[in-house]
C-alpha cells in the first residue's frame, strides 16, 4: 500500500480515478460498518458514481428503508442541525485548522521569547528586537516574576512555620544538602547532615563550586530570615567591589 500524499483535487487520469474510486469506496463502506458495530448505532450510506447507474448502498440491520424512515420521521430541525455538505464540512474543518494553527503559533511565540529572555539574561543584546518583541518580552518577564514572587512567598512561609533554630535556613529546601563550607567538603553534596543548616541546591559542576567558596562562606554568617541579595546589598566576605565581576562571570560564564 503506497503512502504518497494525495492532492485534494479531482483525479483527471481516468484509470487512476477509477482505481481510486474502487479502493476508497470499499474503505468507506468498511468504516461505516465499523462505526455502527463499535458504537452500536444505526447508519446508512448511499454512493453514486459515474461508473454505475445504480448506487451502492449499505445500511446497518433492518435495511436502508428503516434508517431513511427513522431519519425522515425526525423533525426537520433535528435533521438539519448536524447536516453538512462538502462546502459546510470543509468550512468547519478550515475553522478548526485555523484555530489549531493560531494556538500553535501563540505557543511557539511564547517559547521563542522565553529563549530570547534567557539569552538576554546572559548578556545578549536587545538591539535586534523589534518593538513587538520588546513588548512580548516585557510581558513574559512579568509573568515569570509573578511566579517567582509567589514561590518566594511560599518558601518563606514554610521557613516561618519551622522551628526557630531552623527557621533561617528552612526555606532553602530544594536540592542537595551540604554540611560544611570548606572547599573539599563542598564536593560531597550527598552527605547527610547532622545539623539544620542547609544550602540551596546548585546543580553546578566542581569548578563553579570552587569559585564560589566565598559565597558559601557567606551563607554561614548570621543572617536575617530573608537571605536574598540584590547586587549591592550583598555582604561580601572580602568587602570589595572587584568581586562583583567575579560573581557575574561565575554564574553566567
Amino acid at each position: 500500500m503506497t503512502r504518497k500524499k494525495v492532492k485534494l483535487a479531482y483525479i483527471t487520469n481516468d484509470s487512476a480515478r477509477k482505481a481510486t474510486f474502487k479502493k476508497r469506496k470499499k474503505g468507506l463502506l468498511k468504516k461505516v460498518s465499523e462505526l455502527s458495530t463499535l458504537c452500536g448505532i444505526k447508519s446508512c450510506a448511499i454512493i453514486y458514481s459515474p461508473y454505475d447507474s445504480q448506487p451502492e448502498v449499505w445500511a446497518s440491520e433492518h435495511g436502508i428503508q428503516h434508517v431513511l424512515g427513522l431519519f425522515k420521521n425526525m423533525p426537520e430541525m433535528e435533521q438539519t442541525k448536524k447536516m453538512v455538505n462538502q462546502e459546510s464540512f470543509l468550512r468547519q474543518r478550515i475553522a478548526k485548522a485555523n484555530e489549531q494553527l493560531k494556538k500553535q503559533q501563540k505557543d511557539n511565540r511564547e517559547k521563542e521569547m522565553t529563549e530570547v529572555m534567557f539569552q538576554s539574561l546572559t548578556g545578549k543584546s536587545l538591539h535586534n528586537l523589534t518593538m513587538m518583541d520588546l513588548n512580548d518580552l516585557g510581558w513574559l518577564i512579568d509573568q515569570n516574576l509573578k511566579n517567582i514572587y509567589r514561590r518566594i512567598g511560599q518558601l518563606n512561609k514554610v521557613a516561618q512555620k519551622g522551628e526557630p533554630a531552623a527557621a533561617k535556613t528552612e526555606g532553602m529546601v530544594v536540592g542537595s544538602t551540604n554540611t560544611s563550607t570548606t572547599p573539599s567538603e563542598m564536593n560531597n553534596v550527598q552527605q547527610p547532615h547532622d545539623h539544620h543548616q542547609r544550602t540551596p541546591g546548585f546543580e553546578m559542576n566542581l569548578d563553579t563550586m570552587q569559585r564560589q567558596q566565598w559565597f558559601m562562606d557567606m551563607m554561614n554568617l548570621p543572617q536575617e530570615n530573608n537571605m536574598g541579595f540584590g547586587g549591592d546589598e550583598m555582604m561580601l566576605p572580602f568587602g570589595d567591589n572587584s568581586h562583583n565581576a567575579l560573581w557575574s562571570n561565575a554564574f553566567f560564564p
Partner: protein
Amino acid sequence: MRKSKGRQKIEMVKMPNDSNLQVTFSKRRSGLFKKASELCTLCGAEIGIIVFSPGKKVFSFGHPCVETIIDRFLTRNPPQNSGTLQLIEAHRNASVREHNVQLTQLTSQLEAERKRGEALNRMRKAGQAEHWWEAPIEGLGLQQLEQLKGSLEELKKNVAKQADRLLIQNSNPPQFFGAGNSNHGVIPFDTTIPYDTKNVGFSGHAMPHAYNHGYGRGFF
C-alpha cells in the same frame, strides 16, 4: 518515551466502556465524513451518509446535499440535468475547490508550526541541562530565586529602556542625531562611532557611567 500504546487492533464488537464509546463515535464519525468528502472530491462521486449517535442525535453528510441524494434514491429518478442545475453545481464545485486549497495550505502551515514547536522544546531542554536559571522555578532554591528575581527585574528595566530608545529612534529623523546627543550610540548605520561592537549587552554604549554599573557581560 512512549506516551501511549499507539494503534491497537480492536475487536469488532460494541465497545464495553461507555465513555470510550462516545469518544470513539465522535472521532470515527469525523473521520468517516472526511473520507466521504475526499471520495467526492477525488472521484466525482455523489454520496449521502446518515449516522445516528449514541445520544440519538443524527449526523449526516451529503454531496451535493443530503436531501437530493435521499430523494434520488427513493424516487429512483436519474439526476436532472437542466442548465440551471448544472450552473449551480459548477459554482458549488468551484467553491469546494477553493476550500480544499485553503485547507491544504492550513494543514501544511500547522504541520510546520508543530515542527517548530518541537525544535523549540528541544532547545529549552538543552538549555535547562546547562543553566540552572532555565529550570522550572519549583526546582529552585530560595537563594536562586532571589537572584533570578533580581536579574529579571534588571532585564525588565533594560527592555523598557530599549523600547523607549526605539520610540525615539523611530519618531526622529536621522539628521537630528548630532555629536552632542547622548543617544548616538543607538544609530546602527553610523560606523564612525568607536564603540566595541563585539561586546554584547550595554557596556559598549556611550551612556552615562551609572548605566554601566552591574551590566558587564550580563545582569548579575
